[in-house]
């Protein structure tokens, strides 16, 4: 593994990586089609659309139709990549995704941006805290949450030939840099970013770097934790979860509702494997999002390194 985490921000904004690679994918494969619902300017693909309107298609503000069109394009032999904000890429279009894409056995790659508190100033209406739950519930769907820009680029190319429905959850900005160029990502395999025997944090997306920061805080107190980037929420890396259980305490951390997301997936895997250790979940509890800066929201909802550290201290 090529780990570069040092607490500094990711050098690239995810939107820039998405825009550049979406256009490169289309150039590399004439069957790649990128669809968006009047959100191209938000994800740096507007120029791609103007340059190549055959492969970059603006569907207007009509997300349900867009998912149906993507299904049809897949049935017609194309490789659709679809983007809009997370709530509109999940809640708003769920039946079209379930039936026209997944149940019909078609292959579509859906990118939902600004997960949870990342929607910041757009406020509660724009914060999907249930998209992982919705997509996990779809048979044979692949569900991924991106934690760093190197991973994003790698995954975008890797899923081009992937069969079935793939949902990719990601911010448009950046978190902390984690992976160096050339790092290998295997869908379905979590990555151990830090070793430690006192507890393990299994995290995804924004919470991965928060967990790394928490590990640093705790190390100063003599507590050594393992940190896992579980970027594939489904199919879950159950072997790695069982391995992590050997520390005696697992804390899951997600920028998502505790219902139906990573934490529940991990808990279920542990109980079914008769391997349940001490267990805590960090995520949204019975609340909707609200408007405000990301750091304020992280603090308010406990989605930060301090709360991870506190949770571990209290549980040990």
């Amino acid at each position, binding site marked *: 593994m090529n780990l570069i985490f040092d607490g500094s921000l990711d050098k690239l904004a995810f939107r820039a990586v998405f825009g550049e690679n979406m256009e490169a994918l289309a150039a590399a494969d004439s069957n790649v089609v990128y669809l968006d619902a009047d959100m191209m300017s938000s994800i740096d693909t507007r120029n791609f659309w103007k340059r190549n309107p055959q492969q970059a298609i603006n569907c207007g503000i009509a997300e349900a139709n867009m998912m149906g069109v993507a299904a049809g394009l897949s049935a017609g032999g194309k490789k659709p990549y679809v983007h809009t904000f997370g709530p509109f890429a999940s809640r708003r279009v769920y039946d079209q995704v379930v039936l026209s894409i997944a149940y019909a056995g078609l292959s579509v790659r859906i990118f939902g941006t600004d997960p949870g508190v990342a929607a910041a100033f757009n*406020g509660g209406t724009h914060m999907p805290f249930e998209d992982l739950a919705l997509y996990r519930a779809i048979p044979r769907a692949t569900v991924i949450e991106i934690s760093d820009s190197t991973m994003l680029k790698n995954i975008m190319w890797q899923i081009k030939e992937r069969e079935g429905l793939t949902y990719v959850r990601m911010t448009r900005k950046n978190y902390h840099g984690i992976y160096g160029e050339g790092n290998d990502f295997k869908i379905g395999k979590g990555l151990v970013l830090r070793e430690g025997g006192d507890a393990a944090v299994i995290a995804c997306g924004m919470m991965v770097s928060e967990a790394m920061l928490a590990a640093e805080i705790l190390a100063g107190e003599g507590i050594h934790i393992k940190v896992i980037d579980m970027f594939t929420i489904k199919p879950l890396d159950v072997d790695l979860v069982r391995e992590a259980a050997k520390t005696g305490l697992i804390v899951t951390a997600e920028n998502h509702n505790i219902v139906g997301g990573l934490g529940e997936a991990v808990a279920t895997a542990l109980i079914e494997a008769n391997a349940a250790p001490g267990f805590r979940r960090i995520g949204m509890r019975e609340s909707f999002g609200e408007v405000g800066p990301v750091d304020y929201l992280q603090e308010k909802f406990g989605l930060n390194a301090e709360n991870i550290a506190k949770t571990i201290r209290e549980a040990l």
Partner: protein
Amino acid sequence: MDIRELEIFAARIRLETTKMIGIRGFGHLSGSLSVADVLAVLYGGFMRIRPEEPGWPGRDKLVLSKGHAGPALYSALAMRGFFPMDWLATLNQPGTRLPSHCDRLLTPGVDMTTGSLGQGASAAAGLALAQKMDNLDSRTFLILGDGECNEGQVWEAALFANQYKLSNLIAFVDYNKKQLDGTTAEVMDMGDISAKFASFGWHTQNIDGGCVKSILAALNAVSADAPSCIVLNTIKGAKVPTVEKIEYNHHIVVEGDLLAAAIAECELELQKLEVRG
């Protein structure tokens, strides 16, 4: 309010909206400016409301379905006394009661939560139906974006409103000819919006949406038997030239020179109107 007072009210909405977004430094300024005139007419006397009793059951209701124009509505509500003017500076700040998109639980005078485009159309139909069921003579007003009309849900609501003869439902379409990625023509061409609503059984009018007199006249000319749609010909960024002339002005940075110029333009407009009196 007479016509001149309505014009002044609209100009004040623009000024307060610009200042409020300027404090945060970015936001959906242009699409807020294009609905200032219609909001001025509605809240300047046309709607039956009681600012001191925002939940008055007999009131007329408004659904700002293009919920990102919230700041313009907040300005109008504050000036009408629904809440103190100093709330406006809290837009999008931690713990605020004025979020970027409208929220009925947070803001006195906001009748429906919006932000996911298209959904306000159906909610407005439900509000209008409830008023009918209770034999109230009050009405529900709906403000849609032209890009928002891409959503199939808008047209499902349009069918519903005609089926149940919701003559107490009055929809405005803010036809500013732009959506997020560009013009409506290049993204998803809506064609003739009023002809579309007419074919769904609605009474329709096409007017200058920047003219309070025309808006008032259109409101007085709606049908008594069918839901009504008033298409407002507007400009995204209306009456603030600095904002109007930005080509892609959906969500913009509003600070420094741009903010100063925009505020100066709003103030000039206001002065002209006040002097004219």
